């Protein structure tokens, strides 16, 4: 009887919390008429910003995956001096305020820095450029990929890698045929998380680039310039696009889990 009481009170608490998440989103979704949403979805400014947001986040995720995934394997397999410090550094972007993260990245890529000068040499400026947006998104979202991939590699028994070595495989072949495929579920889920986190970033991006406008910045701009009524439809369209994207990616993930 007592246990049931506990179950009930915890469930009620949980339901209240769920309502706290669902209510605002549902309210937002119902705030605009379908006609208004349709019109917004066809607005070139909105369309371009959504494409830019998805594109930069995707590009950043894939580009950084090339370094992040092998590095995660190192983190999973080896112990080395300052490993704890390095792990803490990786988690840093999660805990620092994102506007501060934007300032930090800006200081790193602005025109008078080494990276900025390298950019200028090949003819573009990171600031106000999709490449800069991509870097800002990657900065705040990279920990999600590294941590997920590291957990994935940890879950792969080291014996399987050793067995592959004794079967004559080179370390590179072992990585690509054993470690990577077996950790793939976690890596994919890390890629999705990083992509999602990058896409929803506002604070860091607005400091690097107000223009071209990613959707979170566009929503903010419509809100400050025209008010809530104008910001709502864009938000709804963006949320719907993101939701569809996630459903597809989740489906992909559940398929890999089954196989």
């Amino acid at each position, binding site marked *: 009887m007592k246990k049931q009481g506990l179950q009930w009170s915890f469930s009620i608490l949980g339901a209240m919390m769920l309502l706290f998440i669902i209510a605002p989103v549902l309210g937002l979704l119902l705030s605009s008429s379908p006609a208004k949403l349709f019109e917004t979805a066809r607005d070139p400014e909105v369309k371009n910003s959504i494409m830019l947001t998805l594109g930069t986040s995707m590009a950043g995720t894939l580009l950084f995956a090339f370094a992040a995934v092998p590095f995660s394997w190192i983190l999973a397999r080896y112990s080395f001096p300052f490993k704890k410090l390095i792990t803490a550094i990786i988690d840093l972007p999660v805990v620092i305020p994102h506007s501060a993260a934007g300032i930090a990245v800006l200081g790193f890529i602005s025109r008078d820095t080494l990276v900025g000068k390298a950019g200028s040499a090949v003819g573009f400026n990171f600031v106000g450029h999709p490449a800069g947006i991509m870097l800002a998104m990657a900065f705040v979202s990279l920990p999600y990929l590294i941590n997920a991939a590291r957990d994935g590699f940890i879950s792969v028994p080291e*014996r399987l890698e050793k*067995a*592959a*070595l*004794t*079967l*004559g495989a080179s370390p590179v072949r072992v990585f690509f*045929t054993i470690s990577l495929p077996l950790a793939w579920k976690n890596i994919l889920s890390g890629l999705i998380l990083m992509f999602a986190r990058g896409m929803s970033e506002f604070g860091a991006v607005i400091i690097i680039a107000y223009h071209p406008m990613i959707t979170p910045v566009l929503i903010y701009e419509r809100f400050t310039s025209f008010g809530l009524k104008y910001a709502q439809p864009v938000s709804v369209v963006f949320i719907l696009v993101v939701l569809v994207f996630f459903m597809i990616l989740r489906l992909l993930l559940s398929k890999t889990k089954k196989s």
Partner: protein
Amino acid sequence: MLKLRGITKDFNGFRISDISFDVEKGDYFILLGPSGAGKSLLLETIAGLVHPGSGTIELNGKDITRAPIQQRKVGLVFQDHAIFPHMKVKKNLAYALHGQSNENIRRKIRSMSAGLGIEDMLERYPSTLSGGELQRVALARTLIQEPEILLLDEPLASMDSRLKAEIRALLRQIHRGGQTIMHVTHDYEEALSLGNRIAVMESGRILQTGTPDEVFRHPKNGFVAHFIGIKNFIPATVRTGDGLACAETPGNMKIRLTGGQENEKGFVMIRGEDIVLSIEALDSSASNVFHGIVDEITATPNGFDICVDAGEKLHALVTGISRDKLNIREGMKIWLNFKATAVKFIEE
């Protein structure tokens, strides 16, 4: 063929030191020792997964101490099989044949899977296989690369007795085919039934190497004797007062034996098979005749272990037929008879 000289290594809290022995071509070499003795570490060192701190490893006259794993021609089968779970059995077998022609790979898989009885599992994923089937696949996957020496890490651990017998038979068959094998185990029965040479290892050191007969009949020290399952191992002091020497035990048994110096301290050791049980005192050449009370009867794979309290608890091994003939029951009085030459004295 495989020659280890002075191998020493500290690794993750395990330590092996000054390991030296030879494995000859065609040997079935058993490395026998309790868990934690460093056996697996030694195997991984031979396979090249771990580099020794000092010492050398030679295979067929070639120094492979620092050779890359791929160039060693050493096959290692892990205790938990380490079959790649994301590949079908066929792909597992083909893994070591990377770079060979498709025709070659097909032919080798066909003949290896036929030899080990896994032809009908080739299209299956490892998660659908039983422990015995996984062991066969692991052996096939390693043997397909035609290693000079096959290293087996506890290949019969965590198997039921029927499966053990099946895999033992398979290992014998592989050995008869000319494969040199080095097999790590903690089970002395496994060592006796498979090995033609045995090395006993404890705390990272090799205590004794020899044929099973040498090791089991003449264990070099107390640890070896205890470990290989000889239960009649009693501390004693030698007295040489009246003619034939005898060993006095803490339980006041005076056990006649050959050799031994006055007041020498050590252990007497008697194999359970050498003790004859009788209802009456026997008039025989056995100079050790004691009577005692049957303390406990335990079934063993080959009969019964009769523990008799005669001042010290002595274990005699008898067949089921003998037990029935003498009608041995717990609590009954019984005589123990064994020759002085069956008593081995090991000085401390």
